[in-house]
Protein backbone atom coordinates (compact mmCIF):
# COMPACT_ATOMS: atom_id res chain seq x y z
CA UNK A 1 0.00 0.00 0.00
CA UNK A 2 1.55 3.30 -0.96
CA UNK A 3 2.36 5.54 1.99
CA UNK A 4 0.33 8.28 0.35
CA UNK A 5 -2.90 6.37 0.89
CA UNK A 6 -2.00 5.34 4.42
CA UNK A 7 -1.36 9.00 5.23
CA UNK A 8 -4.72 9.93 3.74
CA UNK A 9 -6.59 7.37 5.83
CA UNK A 10 -4.72 8.37 8.98
CA UNK A 11 -5.48 12.00 8.25
CA UNK A 12 -9.18 11.22 8.09
CA UNK A 13 -8.97 9.40 11.41
CA UNK A 14 -7.04 12.26 12.97
CA UNK A 15 -9.50 14.81 11.59
CA UNK A 16 -12.36 12.95 13.16
CA UNK A 17 -10.96 13.15 16.69
CA UNK A 18 -11.67 16.79 17.50
CA UNK A 19 -15.14 16.33 16.05
CA UNK A 20 -15.80 13.42 18.37
CA UNK A 21 -19.49 13.61 19.05
CA UNK A 22 -19.32 17.36 19.04
CA UNK A 23 -22.36 17.80 16.82
CA UNK A 24 -22.12 21.49 17.62
CA UNK A 25 -25.30 22.76 19.15
CA UNK A 26 -24.82 26.44 18.91
CA UNK A 27 -27.32 29.22 18.81
CA UNK A 28 -26.97 29.75 15.10
CA UNK A 29 -29.09 26.60 14.74
CA UNK A 30 -26.50 24.80 12.68
CA UNK A 31 -25.19 21.33 13.42
CA UNK A 32 -22.46 19.33 11.82
CA UNK A 33 -21.23 15.81 12.12
CA UNK A 34 -18.35 13.73 10.90
CA UNK A 35 -17.91 9.98 10.91
CA UNK A 36 -15.27 7.65 9.50
CA UNK A 37 -15.99 3.99 8.81
CA UNK A 38 -12.76 2.02 8.48
CA UNK A 39 -12.26 -1.61 7.49
CA UNK A 40 -9.34 -3.92 6.79
CA UNK A 41 -9.75 -7.32 5.17
CA UNK A 42 -7.76 -10.52 4.69
CA UNK A 43 -8.79 -12.98 1.99
CA UNK A 44 -8.10 -16.51 0.82
CA UNK A 45 -9.87 -17.93 -2.20
CA UNK A 46 -9.60 -21.13 -4.19
CA UNK A 47 -9.58 -20.82 -8.01
CA UNK A 48 -8.92 -17.11 -7.73
CA UNK A 49 -5.58 -15.54 -8.37
CA UNK A 50 -6.31 -12.27 -6.69
CA UNK A 51 -8.62 -10.38 -4.38
CA UNK A 52 -11.74 -9.14 -6.13
CA UNK A 53 -12.29 -5.57 -7.22
CA UNK A 54 -14.86 -5.25 -4.46
CA UNK A 55 -12.35 -6.17 -1.78
CA UNK A 56 -9.72 -3.57 -0.98
CA UNK A 57 -7.51 -4.74 1.87
CA UNK A 58 -8.20 -1.46 3.64
CA UNK A 59 -10.77 1.25 3.11
CA UNK A 60 -12.11 4.35 4.81
CA UNK A 61 -15.53 5.85 4.27
CA UNK A 62 -15.69 9.45 5.45
CA UNK A 63 -19.19 10.79 6.02
CA UNK A 64 -19.91 14.42 6.81
CA UNK A 65 -23.15 16.31 7.25
CA UNK A 66 -24.22 19.85 7.98
CA UNK A 67 -27.69 21.02 8.94
CA UNK A 68 -28.72 24.65 9.13
CA UNK A 69 -32.39 25.43 9.63
CA UNK A 70 -34.07 23.31 6.95
CA UNK A 71 -31.02 23.06 4.72
CA UNK A 72 -28.76 20.03 4.68
CA UNK A 73 -25.45 19.27 3.05
CA UNK A 74 -24.15 15.76 3.12
CA UNK A 75 -21.20 13.92 1.60
CA UNK A 76 -19.51 10.53 1.54
CA UNK A 77 -15.89 10.24 0.46
CA UNK A 78 -14.55 6.72 -0.03
CA UNK A 79 -10.84 5.92 0.05
CA UNK A 80 -9.06 2.67 -0.82
CA UNK A 81 -5.52 2.00 -2.03
CA UNK A 82 -6.86 2.12 -5.62
CA UNK A 83 -9.69 4.56 -5.39
CA UNK A 84 -10.66 7.94 -4.00
CA UNK A 85 -14.20 8.94 -4.84
CA UNK A 86 -16.75 11.44 -3.69
CA UNK A 87 -19.42 8.75 -3.70
CA UNK A 88 -22.24 11.01 -2.61
CA UNK A 89 -22.61 14.74 -2.34
CA UNK A 90 -26.10 16.01 -1.69
CA UNK A 91 -27.62 19.36 -0.85
CA UNK A 92 -31.13 19.19 0.48
CA UNK A 93 -34.07 21.15 1.76
CA UNK A 94 -36.35 19.63 4.39
CA UNK A 95 -39.82 21.05 3.65
CA UNK A 96 -41.41 19.41 6.65
CA UNK A 97 -39.87 16.90 9.07
CA UNK A 98 -38.73 13.80 7.17
CA UNK A 99 -39.54 15.18 3.72
CA UNK A 100 -36.38 16.21 1.91
CA UNK A 101 -35.59 17.18 -1.66
CA UNK A 102 -31.93 16.54 -2.47
CA UNK A 103 -29.79 17.62 -5.39
CA UNK A 104 -26.44 16.07 -6.19
CA UNK A 105 -24.96 12.61 -6.57
CA UNK A 106 -26.82 9.98 -4.61
CA UNK A 107 -27.33 6.23 -4.28
CA UNK A 108 -30.38 5.21 -6.24
CA UNK A 109 -33.28 4.23 -3.97
CA UNK A 110 -34.15 1.02 -5.83
CA UNK A 111 -31.32 -0.91 -4.18
CA UNK A 112 -32.50 -2.68 -1.04
CA UNK A 113 -28.96 -3.21 0.26
CA UNK A 114 -27.03 -0.09 -0.68
CA UNK A 115 -29.56 2.42 0.61
CA UNK A 116 -29.16 0.77 4.00
CA UNK A 117 -25.41 0.22 4.21
CA UNK A 118 -23.88 2.52 1.58
CA UNK A 119 -20.07 2.20 1.73
CA UNK A 120 -19.77 1.81 5.50
CA UNK A 121 -18.54 -1.73 6.13
CA UNK A 122 -19.00 -1.50 9.90
CA UNK A 123 -22.78 -1.18 9.62
CA UNK A 124 -22.98 -4.28 7.47
CA UNK A 125 -23.13 -7.44 9.59
CA UNK A 126 -21.34 -9.50 6.95
CA UNK A 127 -18.23 -8.72 4.92
CA UNK A 128 -19.45 -9.09 1.35
CA UNK A 129 -22.46 -7.55 -0.29
CA UNK A 130 -24.68 -9.57 -2.64
CA UNK A 131 -23.29 -9.61 -6.18
CA UNK A 132 -26.41 -7.98 -7.63
CA UNK A 133 -25.85 -5.02 -5.27
CA UNK A 134 -22.23 -4.33 -6.27
CA UNK A 135 -21.07 -0.82 -7.07
CA UNK A 136 -20.29 0.21 -10.63
CA UNK A 137 -16.52 0.18 -10.09
CA UNK A 138 -16.75 -3.37 -8.75
CA UNK A 139 -18.25 -4.51 -12.08
CA UNK A 140 -21.75 -4.12 -10.65
CA UNK A 141 -24.41 -4.60 -13.30
CA UNK A 142 -27.10 -2.29 -11.88
CA UNK A 143 -26.52 1.50 -11.95
CA UNK A 144 -26.13 2.72 -8.37
CA UNK A 145 -24.84 6.31 -8.48
CA UNK A 146 -27.17 8.86 -10.05
CA UNK A 147 -26.61 12.60 -10.34
CA UNK A 148 -29.78 14.66 -10.22
CA UNK A 149 -32.65 15.08 -7.79
CA UNK A 150 -33.81 12.75 -5.03
CA UNK A 151 -37.05 13.12 -3.13
CA UNK A 152 -37.49 11.29 0.19
CA UNK A 153 -40.50 11.38 2.47
CA UNK A 154 -41.83 9.45 5.43
CA UNK A 155 -45.44 9.71 6.66
CA UNK A 156 -47.24 8.16 9.60
CA UNK A 157 -49.64 5.38 8.73
CA UNK A 158 -51.96 3.79 11.22
CA UNK A 159 -51.13 3.87 14.90
CA UNK A 160 -47.40 3.21 14.82
CA UNK A 161 -46.45 2.57 11.20
CA UNK A 162 -45.19 4.71 8.37
CA UNK A 163 -44.94 4.74 4.63
CA UNK A 164 -41.71 5.83 2.99
CA UNK A 165 -41.46 7.13 -0.56
CA UNK A 166 -38.20 7.78 -2.40
CA UNK A 167 -37.82 8.84 -6.00
CA UNK A 168 -34.76 9.79 -7.98
CA UNK A 169 -34.37 11.39 -11.41
CA UNK A 170 -31.05 12.19 -12.99
CA UNK A 171 -28.14 11.18 -15.16
CA UNK A 172 -27.48 7.44 -15.33
CA UNK A 173 -24.01 5.94 -15.69
CA UNK A 174 -22.67 5.26 -19.17
CA UNK A 175 -21.75 1.76 -20.31
CA UNK A 176 -17.99 1.88 -20.78
CA UNK A 177 -15.46 -0.93 -21.06
CA UNK A 178 -16.73 -3.80 -18.84
CA UNK A 179 -18.14 -1.40 -16.27
CA UNK A 180 -20.78 1.21 -15.72
CA UNK A 181 -19.33 4.68 -15.35
CA UNK A 182 -21.27 7.11 -13.19
CA UNK A 183 -20.79 10.86 -13.26
CA UNK A 184 -17.66 11.72 -11.29
CA UNK A 185 -18.02 14.92 -9.29
CA UNK A 186 -14.30 15.58 -8.94
CA UNK A 187 -12.76 13.79 -11.92
CA UNK A 188 -13.11 13.60 -15.68
CA UNK A 189 -16.44 12.85 -17.29
CA UNK A 190 -16.52 11.61 -20.85
CA UNK A 191 -20.27 12.35 -20.99
CA UNK A 192 -22.88 10.17 -22.71
CA UNK A 193 -25.06 10.05 -19.63
CA UNK A 194 -28.75 9.54 -20.19
CA UNK A 195 -31.84 9.46 -18.01
CA UNK A 196 -32.32 7.40 -14.88
CA UNK A 197 -35.60 7.15 -12.97
CA UNK A 198 -35.65 5.12 -9.77
CA UNK A 199 -38.01 4.73 -6.85
CA UNK A 200 -39.04 2.87 -3.76
CA UNK A 201 -42.29 2.54 -1.87
CA UNK A 202 -41.86 1.03 1.59
CA UNK A 203 -43.97 0.19 4.59
CA UNK A 204 -42.44 0.53 8.06
CA UNK A 205 -44.37 -1.26 10.84
CA UNK A 206 -42.89 1.27 13.27
CA UNK A 207 -42.21 4.88 12.29
CA UNK A 208 -38.92 4.84 14.16
CA UNK A 209 -38.15 1.15 13.81
CA UNK A 210 -35.50 -0.59 11.73
CA UNK A 211 -37.86 -2.90 9.83
CA UNK A 212 -39.29 -2.19 6.42
CA UNK A 213 -40.62 -3.91 3.32
CA UNK A 214 -41.40 -2.52 -0.07
CA UNK A 215 -41.35 -2.35 -3.83
CA UNK A 216 -38.49 -1.12 -6.00
CA UNK A 217 -38.43 0.29 -9.49
CA UNK A 218 -35.67 1.55 -11.74
CA UNK A 219 -35.34 2.54 -15.38
CA UNK A 220 -31.92 3.46 -16.74
CA UNK A 221 -31.09 4.50 -20.26
CA UNK A 222 -27.45 3.49 -20.72
CA UNK A 223 -25.42 4.74 -23.65
CA UNK A 224 -22.44 2.73 -24.80
CA UNK A 225 -19.19 4.68 -24.59
CA UNK A 226 -16.67 1.98 -25.51
CA UNK A 227 -15.93 0.37 -28.88
CA UNK A 228 -15.42 -3.06 -27.31
CA UNK A 229 -18.75 -2.89 -25.50
CA UNK A 230 -20.42 -1.71 -28.70
CA UNK A 231 -18.98 -4.71 -30.54
CA UNK A 232 -20.10 -7.17 -27.86
CA UNK A 233 -23.55 -5.72 -27.43
CA UNK A 234 -24.15 -4.78 -31.07
CA UNK A 235 -26.12 -1.83 -29.81
CA UNK A 236 -25.14 1.70 -28.85
CA UNK A 237 -27.62 1.80 -25.99
CA UNK A 238 -29.27 -0.46 -23.46
CA UNK A 239 -32.41 0.29 -21.53
CA UNK A 240 -32.51 -1.37 -18.15
CA UNK A 241 -35.82 -1.78 -16.35
CA UNK A 242 -35.74 -3.13 -12.83
CA UNK A 243 -38.66 -4.34 -10.75
CA UNK A 244 -38.00 -5.57 -7.26
CA UNK A 245 -39.35 -6.32 -3.83
CA UNK A 246 -37.53 -6.46 -0.53
CA UNK A 247 -37.94 -7.04 3.17
CA UNK A 248 -35.62 -6.01 5.97
CA UNK A 249 -37.15 -7.29 9.19
CA UNK A 250 -35.61 -6.93 12.61
CA UNK A 251 -37.08 -8.63 15.66
CA UNK A 252 -34.18 -8.80 18.09
CA UNK A 253 -32.27 -11.07 18.23
CA UNK A 254 -33.27 -11.99 14.65
CA UNK A 255 -32.91 -10.07 11.42
CA UNK A 256 -33.97 -11.16 7.94
CA UNK A 257 -33.00 -9.30 4.77
CA UNK A 258 -34.27 -10.49 1.40
CA UNK A 259 -34.62 -8.95 -2.03
CA UNK A 260 -35.54 -10.15 -5.48
CA UNK A 261 -34.98 -8.25 -8.70
CA UNK A 262 -36.32 -8.82 -12.18
CA UNK A 263 -34.20 -6.98 -14.72
CA UNK A 264 -35.20 -6.43 -18.33
CA UNK A 265 -32.54 -5.27 -20.78
CA UNK A 266 -33.64 -3.79 -24.09
CA UNK A 267 -30.86 -3.51 -26.66
CA UNK A 268 -32.18 -0.72 -28.82
CA UNK A 269 -30.27 -1.11 -32.09
CA UNK A 270 -30.88 -4.81 -32.63
CA UNK A 271 -34.38 -4.73 -31.23
CA UNK A 272 -33.61 -7.52 -28.79
CA UNK A 273 -34.78 -7.96 -25.20
CA UNK A 274 -33.32 -10.17 -22.53
CA UNK A 275 -34.15 -10.53 -18.89
CA UNK A 276 -32.86 -12.16 -15.74
CA UNK A 277 -33.67 -12.53 -12.06
CA UNK A 278 -31.40 -12.21 -9.08
CA UNK A 279 -32.16 -12.36 -5.40
CA UNK A 280 -30.81 -13.12 -1.96
CA UNK A 281 -31.90 -14.05 1.53
CA UNK A 282 -29.82 -13.23 4.58
CA UNK A 283 -30.62 -14.32 8.13
CA UNK A 284 -28.80 -12.95 11.17
CA UNK A 285 -29.04 -14.01 14.80
CA UNK A 286 -27.53 -12.10 17.70
CA UNK A 287 -25.92 -14.25 20.37
CA UNK A 288 -24.70 -13.48 23.89
CA UNK A 289 -21.41 -11.58 24.31
CA UNK A 290 -22.07 -9.50 21.21
CA UNK A 291 -21.62 -12.29 18.73
CA UNK A 292 -23.82 -12.44 15.63
CA UNK A 293 -24.02 -15.35 13.23
CA UNK A 294 -25.29 -14.89 9.71
CA UNK A 295 -25.95 -16.83 6.55
CA UNK A 296 -26.81 -15.69 3.06
CA UNK A 297 -28.09 -17.43 -0.05
CA UNK A 298 -27.87 -15.73 -3.44
CA UNK A 299 -29.41 -17.16 -6.57
CA UNK A 300 -30.22 -16.05 -10.08
CA UNK A 301 -32.00 -17.13 -13.23
CA UNK A 302 -30.95 -16.59 -16.86
CA UNK A 303 -27.97 -14.41 -15.97
CA UNK A 304 -25.60 -16.78 -17.77
CA UNK A 305 -27.58 -16.27 -20.98
CA UNK A 306 -27.48 -12.49 -20.84
CA UNK A 307 -25.23 -10.70 -23.28
CA UNK A 308 -25.47 -7.61 -21.08
CA UNK A 309 -24.28 -9.47 -17.96
CA UNK A 310 -21.41 -11.10 -19.85
CA UNK A 311 -20.03 -7.63 -20.60
CA UNK A 312 -18.94 -7.23 -17.00
CA UNK A 313 -16.85 -10.38 -16.79
CA UNK A 314 -13.22 -9.53 -17.56
CA UNK A 315 -11.49 -12.81 -16.59
CA UNK A 316 -8.83 -10.92 -14.65
CA UNK A 317 -8.45 -13.56 -11.94
CA UNK A 318 -11.26 -12.59 -9.62
CA UNK A 319 -14.98 -13.19 -9.71
CA UNK A 320 -17.10 -10.39 -11.16
CA UNK A 321 -20.39 -12.14 -11.75
CA UNK A 322 -21.76 -14.78 -9.40
CA UNK A 323 -24.76 -16.83 -10.35
CA UNK A 324 -25.09 -18.38 -6.92
CA UNK A 325 -23.45 -17.98 -3.55
CA UNK A 326 -23.82 -19.47 -0.11
CA UNK A 327 -22.16 -17.54 2.68
CA UNK A 328 -21.87 -18.22 6.39
CA UNK A 329 -20.12 -16.18 9.01
CA UNK A 330 -19.76 -14.81 12.48
CA UNK A 331 -19.28 -11.27 13.70
CA UNK A 332 -17.96 -10.23 17.10
CA UNK A 333 -18.48 -6.66 18.31
CA UNK A 334 -15.65 -7.01 20.79
CA UNK A 335 -15.70 -3.39 21.90
CA UNK A 336 -17.74 -0.27 21.22
CA UNK A 337 -17.80 0.49 17.49
CA UNK A 338 -15.26 -2.15 16.53
CA UNK A 339 -15.96 -5.60 15.16
CA UNK A 340 -14.20 -8.68 13.84
CA UNK A 341 -15.97 -10.74 11.19
CA UNK A 342 -15.22 -14.06 9.51
CA UNK A 343 -17.07 -15.20 6.42
CA UNK A 344 -16.90 -18.41 4.44
CA UNK A 345 -18.59 -18.63 1.07
CA UNK A 346 -19.04 -20.91 -1.91
CA UNK A 347 -19.56 -19.19 -5.25
CA UNK A 348 -20.70 -20.38 -8.64
CA UNK A 349 -19.70 -17.75 -11.16
CA UNK A 350 -20.11 -17.47 -14.93
CA UNK A 351 -16.94 -19.46 -15.46
CA UNK A 352 -15.99 -21.36 -12.32
CA UNK A 353 -16.74 -22.54 -8.80
CA UNK A 354 -14.82 -21.11 -5.91
CA UNK A 355 -14.56 -21.06 -2.12
CA UNK A 356 -13.58 -17.99 -0.16
CA UNK A 357 -12.53 -17.27 3.38
CA UNK A 358 -12.47 -13.68 4.57
CA UNK A 359 -11.59 -11.99 7.83
CA UNK A 360 -12.37 -8.35 8.48
CA UNK A 361 -11.81 -5.73 11.14
CA UNK A 362 -14.24 -2.84 10.90
CA UNK A 363 -14.82 0.24 13.01
CA UNK A 364 -16.67 3.52 13.22
CA UNK A 365 -14.68 6.53 14.41
CA UNK A 366 -15.31 8.37 16.68
Amino acid at each position, binding site marked *: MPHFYLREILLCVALSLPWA*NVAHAQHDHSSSDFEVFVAAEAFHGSQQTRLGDADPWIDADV*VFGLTKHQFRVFGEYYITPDERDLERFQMGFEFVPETVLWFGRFHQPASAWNTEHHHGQYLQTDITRPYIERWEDEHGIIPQHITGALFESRHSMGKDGAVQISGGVGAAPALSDRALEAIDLIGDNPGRHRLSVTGRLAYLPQYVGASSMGLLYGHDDLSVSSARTLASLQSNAAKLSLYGAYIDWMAEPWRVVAADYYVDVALTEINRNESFNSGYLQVERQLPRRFTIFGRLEDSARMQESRYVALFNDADGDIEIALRRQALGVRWDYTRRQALTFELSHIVSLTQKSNELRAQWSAAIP
Partner: protein
Amino acid sequence: MSKIAATAVLVTLLAATRPVSAAEQLVLIVSADSKVEQLDSLEVRKLFLGLTVTYNGDRLRPVLDEADARVKKIFLQNIVSMSDTTYDRSVLRLTLIQGQIKPIAYKDIAQLINAVIADPTAVSYAWAKDVAHDSRIKILRVLWYD
Protein backbone atom coordinates in the same frame (compact mmCIF):
# COMPACT_ATOMS: atom_id res chain seq x y z
CA MET B 1 -48.21 -10.65 68.74
CA SER B 2 -48.50 -7.00 69.83
CA LYS B 3 -44.82 -6.50 68.88
CA ILE B 4 -45.50 -7.69 65.35
CA ALA B 5 -48.60 -5.51 65.10
CA ALA B 6 -46.65 -2.46 66.32
CA THR B 7 -43.90 -3.09 63.78
CA ALA B 8 -46.46 -3.46 61.02
CA VAL B 9 -48.12 -0.17 61.99
CA LEU B 10 -44.74 1.59 62.06
CA VAL B 11 -43.75 0.26 58.64
CA THR B 12 -47.12 1.28 57.21
CA LEU B 13 -46.83 4.77 58.66
CA LEU B 14 -43.28 5.18 57.34
CA ALA B 15 -44.33 4.02 53.90
CA ALA B 16 -47.28 6.36 53.88
CA THR B 17 -45.39 9.42 55.05
CA ARG B 18 -42.26 8.84 52.95
CA PRO B 19 -42.21 11.37 50.11
CA VAL B 20 -41.76 10.02 46.57
CA SER B 21 -38.02 10.15 46.21
CA ALA B 22 -36.92 12.60 43.53
CA ALA B 23 -33.79 10.48 43.05
CA GLU B 24 -35.91 7.73 41.58
CA GLN B 25 -37.54 9.78 38.86
CA LEU B 26 -36.09 10.31 35.43
CA VAL B 27 -37.54 13.45 33.94
CA LEU B 28 -37.64 15.02 30.49
CA ILE B 29 -36.07 18.48 30.59
CA VAL B 30 -35.65 21.60 28.48
CA SER B 31 -34.35 25.07 29.19
CA ALA B 32 -36.68 27.38 31.12
CA ASP B 33 -36.49 29.64 28.03
CA SER B 34 -37.70 26.87 25.74
CA LYS B 35 -41.06 27.18 23.99
CA VAL B 36 -41.56 23.43 24.30
CA GLU B 37 -44.39 22.59 26.68
CA GLN B 38 -44.89 18.89 26.00
CA LEU B 39 -43.57 16.03 23.89
CA ASP B 40 -45.27 12.67 23.60
CA SER B 41 -43.45 9.32 23.78
CA LEU B 42 -43.24 8.91 19.99
CA GLU B 43 -41.80 12.39 19.53
CA VAL B 44 -39.23 11.72 22.26
CA ARG B 45 -38.29 8.41 20.62
CA LYS B 46 -38.01 10.02 17.17
CA LEU B 47 -35.88 12.80 18.58
CA PHE B 48 -33.38 10.50 20.28
CA LEU B 49 -33.19 8.24 17.26
CA GLY B 50 -31.99 11.19 15.20
CA LEU B 51 -35.16 11.97 13.23
CA THR B 52 -36.35 15.52 12.77
CA VAL B 53 -38.74 16.79 15.44
CA THR B 54 -39.90 20.40 15.42
CA TYR B 55 -41.87 22.46 17.90
CA ASN B 56 -43.39 25.76 16.73
CA GLY B 57 -41.06 25.62 13.76
CA ASP B 58 -37.89 25.11 15.79
CA ARG B 59 -35.90 21.96 15.17
CA LEU B 60 -35.25 20.27 18.51
CA ARG B 61 -31.85 18.90 19.51
CA PRO B 62 -31.49 15.72 21.53
CA VAL B 63 -28.91 15.70 24.32
CA LEU B 64 -27.91 12.33 25.78
CA ASP B 65 -27.30 11.93 29.50
CA GLU B 66 -24.44 9.48 29.91
CA ALA B 67 -23.48 10.72 33.37
CA ASP B 68 -24.35 7.44 34.98
CA ALA B 69 -24.76 3.92 33.72
CA ARG B 70 -28.22 3.47 35.26
CA VAL B 71 -29.64 6.47 33.42
CA LYS B 72 -28.27 5.08 30.17
CA LYS B 73 -29.84 1.71 30.85
CA ILE B 74 -33.24 3.25 31.62
CA PHE B 75 -32.97 5.43 28.51
CA LEU B 76 -32.27 2.42 26.30
CA GLN B 77 -35.01 0.28 27.84
CA ASN B 78 -37.76 2.85 28.29
CA ILE B 79 -37.21 5.64 25.80
CA VAL B 80 -35.76 4.11 22.66
CA SER B 81 -36.53 0.45 23.48
CA MET B 82 -33.31 -0.88 22.01
CA SER B 83 -30.15 -2.60 23.14
CA ASP B 84 -27.02 -0.48 23.42
CA THR B 85 -25.51 -1.92 20.23
CA THR B 86 -28.72 -1.61 18.21
CA TYR B 87 -29.23 1.99 19.31
CA ASP B 88 -25.66 2.93 18.46
CA ARG B 89 -25.93 1.32 15.03
CA SER B 90 -29.31 2.96 14.37
CA VAL B 91 -27.89 6.40 15.07
CA LEU B 92 -24.78 5.71 12.99
CA ARG B 93 -26.97 4.41 10.18
CA LEU B 94 -28.95 7.65 10.12
CA THR B 95 -25.69 9.56 9.82
CA LEU B 96 -24.67 7.37 6.92
CA ILE B 97 -28.05 7.37 5.19
CA GLN B 98 -29.07 10.99 5.40
CA GLY B 99 -26.23 12.85 7.05
CA GLN B 100 -28.43 13.27 10.11
CA ILE B 101 -26.65 14.67 13.12
CA LYS B 102 -26.05 12.28 16.01
CA PRO B 103 -27.31 13.33 19.46
CA ILE B 104 -24.74 15.08 21.62
CA ALA B 105 -23.71 13.08 24.70
CA TYR B 106 -22.51 14.39 28.05
CA LYS B 107 -20.83 12.33 30.71
CA ASP B 108 -20.97 15.13 33.28
CA ILE B 109 -24.37 16.20 34.62
CA ALA B 110 -23.29 19.81 35.27
CA GLN B 111 -22.13 20.17 31.66
CA LEU B 112 -25.35 18.60 30.42
CA ILE B 113 -27.47 21.02 32.46
CA ASN B 114 -25.44 23.97 31.19
CA ALA B 115 -25.84 22.75 27.61
CA VAL B 116 -29.62 22.48 28.01
CA ILE B 117 -29.86 25.90 29.67
CA ALA B 118 -27.81 27.47 26.88
CA ASP B 119 -29.93 26.10 24.02
CA PRO B 120 -33.72 26.62 24.02
CA THR B 121 -34.07 23.86 21.42
CA ALA B 122 -32.18 21.24 23.46
CA VAL B 123 -34.14 18.36 24.99
CA SER B 124 -32.63 15.97 27.51
CA TYR B 125 -33.42 13.84 30.54
CA ALA B 126 -31.94 13.63 34.02
CA TRP B 127 -32.63 12.45 37.54
CA ALA B 128 -35.25 14.73 39.06
CA LYS B 129 -33.00 15.34 42.09
CA ASP B 130 -30.38 16.95 39.84
CA VAL B 131 -32.74 19.47 38.24
CA ALA B 132 -35.77 19.88 40.50
CA HIS B 133 -34.49 23.00 42.23
CA ASP B 134 -32.88 24.64 39.21
CA SER B 135 -35.10 27.47 38.00
CA ARG B 136 -33.23 27.58 34.68
CA ILE B 137 -34.56 24.12 33.80
CA LYS B 138 -38.14 23.23 32.88
CA ILE B 139 -39.32 19.70 33.63
CA LEU B 140 -41.76 18.52 30.96
CA ARG B 141 -42.74 15.22 32.49
CA VAL B 142 -41.63 12.10 34.31
CA LEU B 143 -40.24 9.52 31.89
CA TRP B 144 -39.59 6.78 34.43
CA TYR B 145 -39.93 6.24 38.13
CA ASP B 146 -39.22 3.49 40.60
